[in-house]
């Protein structure tokens, strides 16, 4: 059966290798220059106080690589969806459409072994391809990632923190989980719908929905957020700003100096007792921060510390792999129980 799976998969495998090669060329060509830029800008050996400034100037110098950076992220973010649509969805659906499942299922091989073989080779290839993309990009973008954590007043896109929406999805091991999930999702949709195009449409819709729900609704809560409060007078040290317009608070806190790269989840104004304050005290309307400080108002910040980066990466990848396994298990059950 492995022979047949390989015979049917070899064109896709060649395409995947071509894509990996095409991805590697620009990264290999520019990677060493980016690393030397990082060293020559002095970020490597910097000391506490000066690091932020040095990192920021490195990010300015690296601005010419913005396009490569964004294209790399786009490729890694889109790869699992493409795999789900073009490897997963047609995998079984096309056998149903052309009737070849009747040919396959009447050879001396059980449906379970047939499906196991069909899922295993392209599924592992899907994981390997995204692993390759993520490894190459991770190597190339390492200086940018380091600088983004250290930089003061970092900005989009090179200054994205490790937890920001696109950066997190394109680094580390999560792309592997996304690819495994998208592939099995496509295969399962194909088994249920038995038509390639509808299976592709359903795969895209569900995968997109999951990819939006994960960073917005689930990832922030994988671990209980840490919490800290800072006097409002020291707000500038929170690398943020406060606006007092018409009596309500609005904070933008991008970075905690004590936690470079931490994922800020929420910022609220609280009084000395730690209770939330929704409106600026009347006495302080159109007054400065010092007025708020004198009223004992502080800023409460909830965040995921940078030290949890890999714990969150592993947990999220685990969730996607578990989903992929559950879908695969369902596919086996479905194929054996509900005969054609």
């Amino acid at each position, binding site marked *: *059966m492995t*022979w*047949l799976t390989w*015979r*049917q998969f070899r*064109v896709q495998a060649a395409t995947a290798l071509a894509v990996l090669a095409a991805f590697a060329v620009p990264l290999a060509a520019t990677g060493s220059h980016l690393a030397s830029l990082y060293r020559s800008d002095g970020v490597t050996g910097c000391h506490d106080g000066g690091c932020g400034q040095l990192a920021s100037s490195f990010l300015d110098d690296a601005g010419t690589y913005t396009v490569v950076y964004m294209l790399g992220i786009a490729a890694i973010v889109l790869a699992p969806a493409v795999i789900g649509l073009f490897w997963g969805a047609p995998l079984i659906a096309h056998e149903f459409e*052309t*009737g*070849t499942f*009747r*040919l*396959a*299922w*009447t*050879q*001396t*091989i*059980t*449906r379970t072994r047939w499906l196991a073989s069909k899922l295993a080779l392209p599924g592992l290839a899907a994981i390997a391809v995204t692993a390759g993309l993520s490894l190459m990009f991770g190597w190339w973008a390492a200086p940018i990632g380091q600088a983004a954590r250290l930089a003061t007043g970092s900005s989009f896109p090179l200054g994205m923190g490790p937890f920001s929406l696109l950066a997190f999805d394109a680094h580390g091991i999560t792309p592997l989980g996304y690819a495994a999930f998208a592939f099995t999702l496509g295969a399962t949709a194909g088994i249920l719908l038995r038509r390639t195009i509808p299976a592709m449409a359903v795969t895209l819709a569900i995968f997109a929905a999951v990819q939006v729900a994960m960073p917005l609704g689930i990832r922030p809560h994988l671990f209980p957020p840490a919490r800290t409060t800072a006097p409002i007078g020291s707000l500038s040290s929170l690398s943020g700003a406060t606006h007092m317009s018409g009596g309500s608070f609005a904070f933008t806190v991008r970075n905690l100096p004590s936690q470079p790269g931490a994922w800020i989840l929420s910022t609220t104004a609280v009084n000395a007792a730690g209770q939330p304050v929704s409106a600026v005290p009347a006495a302080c309307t159109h007054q400065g921060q010092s007025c708020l400080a004198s009223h004992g108002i502080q800023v409460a910040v909830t965040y995921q510390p940078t030290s949890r980066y890999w714990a969150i990466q592993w947990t999220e990848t685990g969730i996607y792999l578990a989903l992929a396994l559950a879908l695969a298990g369902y596919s086996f059950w479905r194929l*054996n129980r509900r*005969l*054609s």
Partner: protein
Amino acid sequence: MTAVIETTGLGKRYRRLWALSDCTLSIPAGRVVGLVGPNGAGKTTLLSLATGLLAPSAGTIEVLAGPPPTGTAQLARVGFLAQGAPVYAGLSVADHLRLGAHLNPGWDTALARGRIGRLHLDPSQKAGTLTLAIAKRPDLLVLDEPVASLDPLARREFLADLMEAVTGQQLSVVLSSHLITDLERVCDYLIVLVASRIQVAGPVEELLATHHLLSGPRRDLATQPAGQQVISANHTDVQTTLLVRTSEPVLDPAWTVSGVSLEDLVLAYMRQAGPGRRNHHLEIRK
């Protein structure tokens, strides 16, 4: 001889429509069985049940004295050529044979090579897919509408090739068609399936010996003896023509008795089941 396919009250339902109902059959081994019926009668459903591609909604089915093939032991014993002879578009004939060799422990390489060499096969030709079904050395070969898309010459060649392959092996064959004329030169056992029900089944010789065409002066059917089952009746103003099934001789001197052709016999059963009851919408999509 044991039965190659034995069913009791077998039925298959798609949502609320019965594609096959109350089917009780015992097909003896060593036969070439023709399964005949109009499109949508349930032929593909019956053959899919026999090859383990479908599970029954009612009744039981035994294939080669075991369960329908879903495990490897039974799968090895049943060869199947599905309707439309599906093949993998990107694979050549040689690739398909390699597929057969990889997926069937009992694969007969010499037989497969010999057939391909002799037939000068074109990838799309059914004889190629027939090779795939035969070279696994099954005990039962099931062919669903194998000649439907072939021109008359190709039909004859396909069936001659099939017969040659069958005589070389201890093999039972079940093949379906909506036209009896396709099958009458090869099959020695006949099943007529119309409107999801078995109308008649038996060895061809026996069917021909027990069905008679009676013609004579016009008369009322109620006067027919109890032993004669009227399959079809045609009346003109002065004459009545009957197709009857009986195991006893027809003694009434008013009748002129003649034999029936297999085609007349099948058509009579199809007419009896009624064209209005055909379930065209149940035809399995390829």
